[in-house]
Every structure is written in C-alpha cells, then in structure tokens.
C-alpha cells in the first residue's frame, strides 16, 4: 500500500500541482477583491517576527512554512494558522502576481518533500490552510485578498490531490467534506459562485454528501434557478429520503419551476402535509405556513384556515402562524377573531431565536458541523504522521526556488 502511494505521489504530484497552479491563477483573477496598495515595511505583527512588506527569499519561505507545519503537527492549533496567515500575507503582494507564484512554489516544494513518503500528511496540511482561511473570514480582515484566495485554493487543491493520489473511498469522503466545509464558509460570506464550484466538486467526490447537495441546492435557489434546485434536491432525497430541510425546499421549489404542472403541485402539497403534521424542528411551522400559502394561492381559503388552525395547535408559540391565520380570517370576514389572534400573538413573549423563515434564508454554520468534524478528526489522527515526515526531512536543505518578491 505504502509503495503504491509513494509511486503515485512521485509520478502524479507535479502534474496535478501544475494544474493547481493554473487553477490558482484563474481563481485569483476571478475571485479576487480590489487590489490593495503595495505594503511598506512595517513593524512585526506576529510570532514569526515578519515585517509588513518585508522581502523574503524562497528559501526563507520554505523554512518558515516547514516551521509552521511543525507547530501544527505539534498540536499548536491556535498558533500555527496565525503564523501561516502572517507568512502568506507578508509574501503575497496583491499588486504583484509573481509573489503569489513564489509562495506557491515554495510551499509546493516543502509539501512535495514531506508527502514523498506518505500521502496522508496532505490531510493535516490541507486542514491548516482551511483553518487559516476560516480565520481570515471570521476576523473580517480582507486586507490581503490574494493571500486569502491562495490559502483557500491550497486547502482545496490539497484535498483533491489527496483523493486523486489515494484513490480510496475514504479519501474521497475526507476530501469531499473538506470542500464542503470550504464551500460553507464561502456561502456564509455570500461568495456563491466559488461555493457552488466547491459543492459541485464535493458531490463528485462523494455522491452521498448530503450537506454539499443541500449547499448547492440553496445556491441555485437563491439565484432563482428553481429547476436546478429541484434536480439537486431530488438527488439528495435519493440518498436521504427523510431529510426534512431538503423535503421542505423541494416542495417549495417544485411549485416555483417555470412550467410546474398540476402533478408537481400535488407532490409539493403531499410533502408539505407530511412535514406540517410530523416535523417538530423549525421546518415544521414553516411547512404549515407554506402549505397554507399553497392553499391560499389556489383559492382554497378554508383549507388554508384549517391547516393554520392545526398548525397553531402544534406550534402555539409561533407568532407568525397567529398573524397568518388572522390575515386569512380577516379576508374571510371574521374580523373579530382575526383581531383576537393578533392580540394573542402579542401575548407570546418576544423570542431571542431566529424565526424559521429567517433560518430558511440563512446559511447556518451548524449545517456544516458534520463536514467539519470529519476533517478535524481526519487531520488530528494524521498529525503524528506529519510530525514524523517533517523530522525525516529536516536534514535536507530547503529547495531553492528562483522567485521572490
């Protein structure tokens, strides 16, 4: 097994990395933010002691990258991603594409070296870049857009490389979750196009990745591509027919398709009825609301009323159901009861929780918890392999790469 991996790694890595480099440049062109002004040398901002705008040789980049990998493998999970951010944001000058290439070449040289004997080290290295990217986003620090894109691309490409070189189902699962988690981060920050690409890749690597399917479907939905939404959700529901959120979105979008037929309306109604009657999560009241709207749209006010009354019995604390039923009754001439319902809605204590309608329109971080857990665990279990690989290669001289600032 080891020999096969080593052989594949030696033969396959450079070609894939070449492809990655092309992808990297393309990505940077497509996704980059507005270029920042060239940084000037300034005081040290991090534990590596680098100064903003400082020129760093390729050898020094490799040395520092190796040190960061070493910290990461030693379990310094707080420190290592910040060091990586410090290194990459110092090296990459947003106005000078060569610096990105230099960084890539230097990191590639180190990875090539440490992964030569065991491809498994790619997982924790990818996770390190993933973590660095997460921190960039969460801190809202967009001063180094090209460095951000670089580290995200590294995480993605290392994941794909790991799968391509390993070829195992497990590798596909890990790589798929890595891409899903990255996609989730992008989606949270409304970067829909790159997120969709990542989700698409994720489902190609693992056709049972329901999180990626759902992420992809919600991007289609937000871009009003309702037929594509339905197609993706059908695939998800083949994997997990009881997935409540997918069922709700499926029902909602079935009716939105440009040429939705009566049969699709009936299918949507059936799904909503089941969810309205049996689903206890935030999906439940939403299914009630949407089922009532469906009846309302089809001029069946009495059915809408019935659905909402039954819904209120299940979800008595849902303010919106009170208001929706009041509006239905109001139009049916039952003004007094409608007023009473609105007044009753005010007896429900104000909620600190987001409403179900808000949740439907929001990318929820917890939706990606499973993917994150898988890659976290996969990374942690391989840290010792990375530490070993680094110790075995420290005697070697850093490779000289003729690019720099």
């Amino acid at each position: 097994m080891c020999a096969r991996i080593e052989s594949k790694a030696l033969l396959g890595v450079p070609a894939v990395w070449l492809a990655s480099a092309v992808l990297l440049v393309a990505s940077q062109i497509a996704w980059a933010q507005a270029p920042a002004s060239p940084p000037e040398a300034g005081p040290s901002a991090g534990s590596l002691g680098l100064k903003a705008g400082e020129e760093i040789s390729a050898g020094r980049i490799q040395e520092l990258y190796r040190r960061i990998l070493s910290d990461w493998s030693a379990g310094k999970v707080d420190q290592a991603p910040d060091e990586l951010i410090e290194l990459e944001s110092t090296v990459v000058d947003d106005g000078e594409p060569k610096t990105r290439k230099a960084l890539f070449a230097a990191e590639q040289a180190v990875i090539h070296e440490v992964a030569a004997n065991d491809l498994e080290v790619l997982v924790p290295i990818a996770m390190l870049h993933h973590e660095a990217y997460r921190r960039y986003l969460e801190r809202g620090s967009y001063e180094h857009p090209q460095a951000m894109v670089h580290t995200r691309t590294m995480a993605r490409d290392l994941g794909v490389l790991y799968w391509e070189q390993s070829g195992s189902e497990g590798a596909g699962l890990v790589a798929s979750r890595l891409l899903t988690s990255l996609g989730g981060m992008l989606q949270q920050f409304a970067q829909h196009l790159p997120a969709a690409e990542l989700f698409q890749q994720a489902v190609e690597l693992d056709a049972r990745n329901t999180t990626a399917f759902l992420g992809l479907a919600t991007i289609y939905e937000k871009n009003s591509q309702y037929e594509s939404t339905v197609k993706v959700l059908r695939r998800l529901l083949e994997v997990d027919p009881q997935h409540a959120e997918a069922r709700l979105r499926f029902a909602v979008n079935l009716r939105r398709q440009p040429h939705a037929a009566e049969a699709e309306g009936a299918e949507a109604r059936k799904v909503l009825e089941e969810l309205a009657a049996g689903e206890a999560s935030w999906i439940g009241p939403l299914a009630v609301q949407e089922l009532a709207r469906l009846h309302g749209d089809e001029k069946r006010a009495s059915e809408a009323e019935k659905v909402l009354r039954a819904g209120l019995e299940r979800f008595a604390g849902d303010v919106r159901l009170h208001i929706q039923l009041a509006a239905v009754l109001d139009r049916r001439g039952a003004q007094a009861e409608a007023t009473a319902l609105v007044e009753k809605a005010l007896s429900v204590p104000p909620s600190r929780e987001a409403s179900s309608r808000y949740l439907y329109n929001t990318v929820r971080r917890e939706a990606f918890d499973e993917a994150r857990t898988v890659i976290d665990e996969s990374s942690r279990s391989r840290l010792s392999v990375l530490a070993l690989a680094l110790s075995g290669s420290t005697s070697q001289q850093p490779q000289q790469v003729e690019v720099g600032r």
Partner: protein
Amino acid sequence: MRRLAIYLAVAFGLGILPAAALAQVKVQIDSPTADQPVFGPTSVMVEVQGAEPVDRVEVFVDNQLKGTAKAPPFNFQIDVGDDNVRREFRAVAHTKTGKTATSTVVTVPVEITEVMNIKLKPLFVTVTRGGRRDLSLTQEDFQVFDNGTPQDLVTFGRDELPLTAVLLLDTSGSMVGGNRVEAVRKGAQAFIDGMKPMDEAMLALFSDRLLQFTPFTEDKSVLARDLGTVEAAGGTAVNDFLYMSLKLLEGRNGQRVVVLFSDGSDVHSVLSASDALWKARTGQALIYWIQLTGGEKRKSFVSAWRDYKSNDREYEVLEKAVVESGGRIERIDRIEDLEAAFRGILRELREQYAVGYYPSNLKGDGSWHKVDVRVRGGGRARTREGYVDY
C-alpha cells in the same frame, strides 16, 4: 372608545354622577361619561382632590376590581369587552388614614341611531400651497368626492383628535453598529416626546420576528423604557408586522397612524405586500414609511424566498399601500436624519385637517370607492385615495 365617549360627552353634555365624597377627599370619574356606550379597551380617568394624601385609587367595572393606582395621574386602561350592555364604573379613593370616597358612572348600550356613525368616513388631509402647508382653511374650502359624487361634510377640524400611533421600528441585523439603534431610539423618542395628553402609542421593534413591543399607552415612560432594551438582530419582515399594526389599529379611535421605519425591504414575511395593501384599504390608518436609503437608489435583491422581480413587485405594492392610505414615504440619507423625520411626521399629523362625511353611495359590496378631496383656491390636498365598501 374612551375618546369616542368624550366626543359624545361634548355633544350630549356631561352626566357624571355625584361622588359620595368625604370631607377630606373628593373623587370624580372624568371619563367615561354617563349615558354613553362603551366597548373594548377603555380609558378610565379619575380625578382626586383633597387635603389628605391618597393611598390608592381602585376602579371597578360592574363590581369587579379592574385596576389600582397608587399615584396620579389616576388613568386606567381597561378592556370592558364587546357586549352592547349597560356598565357601571366605580372609582374608590383610599386615603392614607383609611378614609374612602367613591364616584360612579353608568354607561348605556349603543342605540340604533348611533350605529350609523360607523359609516362616517373620516379623512385626514394635508394641504400644501406653494410647497408650504396651508393651515388657514375652513370647512367651506373643502370639497369631497366619493366615486365622483360630491359629499356633504359633517365634521371638520384640525389638531383636535388625539393620535393613536404604532411606531413600527426595524431593528434587524443591518441596524447593528454605527449607533443605528441609538438613532432609532432617539427618533422614536422625539415622536413620543411630542405626544399630547390623550395621544397614545404602541411601540413594536421588529426584525424577522417581534423583538420588543408595548401595549397602546399614553404613558411616555413605558414607551421610553422599552425603547432602550433592544439589540438589533435578524432579517426583515415588514409585511407581517405592518399587517399586524394595521389590524391592531382597527379597533381604536382618533387619528390612527403607523410610522414604519426600515432600512430595507421585506425579506422574511409570510404575508405578501398585497395583504398589507388590502388591510390598508379596508382600514382607516395612515401609513408613513421612513426609509433609510443611504443616499442611494433602491437596489433589487434576491433571497431564498423571492426572486428579483417578485421583490421589486413587493416593494411597489408596499409603496402603493402607503400612498393609498394617505401617508407618504420619507427617504433619509443618513441615520442621523431620523429624529427630524419623526418630528416632521408628527408635525404633519398635527397640521392635517380632519373632515368626515357619510358616503351617499354605500352598497356594502366590497367595491373600491375612490376618494378625491379638492381645496378651493388651488391648494394641493393629500389624503387616502379610497376605501373598500363593506
């Protein structure tokens, strides 16, 4: 209803029953007055005079204790129910030394002739001439047309009716930072500070959900207190909470108004803007919509709930609801302008003419009646564009 009772009191003369007062303390129920119909939420206003300090005032309706107050003003909001029956209001003042004084008022069921009053159509008219509001007009200066038919005005006035307002304030996530919530607080506070006795308001702070609200109250301290406690969070559901506000105003009297502040458009409502429009058409409240635009043109947007086109349509329908109600949209560039916007709206409400007429052509068939108000001498009159006949 309290205020209806007061207006009728002016028309029919006060009929307060004498209080069984002791020498040291006298108590009198100022509102409601005798021989008048009273329904629903009712304000009971009690006046206490005397040398002895008052310990408390209790109000009973049909011998049931409905409220106690320890200090003036002794005003009580009591929901007496919707039954058309005689009601006995009794106020008992207790002094610190244990003495008591009592006042009683008996209200009567509504008579059939007064049911006709429900058909009275009140209009609140803003008149401008040369860009300035004209406050010098008399009843004779107005002509009202209902579906093209001239109508006889039966009531006329300005700044006489108390206001009943819902301050519907968007405190969604987009209001986080930049002292935006503080600016909303100040703006609403400016409105509250300008309220007169008998005016009442309800405060509703919303996002995709209701974050904070008060009941309708004249008590400015209650309104001010709840203003300061909210944290911005979540999305925006204008339609749902505008419908709710209009519905709540339906059962109230005076010059009814919703002042909506929002920095965005609806995203998360289950109701559509057409539900809000329908409610605006069937009710009598004015809607003012203060929009924080940041000096930019409104941008189309998309969400998981609606595509660009639907969102644009929703916005247009909501605008229509505002205009048809007789209110208007006020766009502000900066959040700092909010306070002035609230003050300006309150001033405008005070400067509106209230004209009323009995429509001569009602059929109760749910049809739309277009209303047109003209002012002699060429002033520009803005009021609600019509109503649903039902």
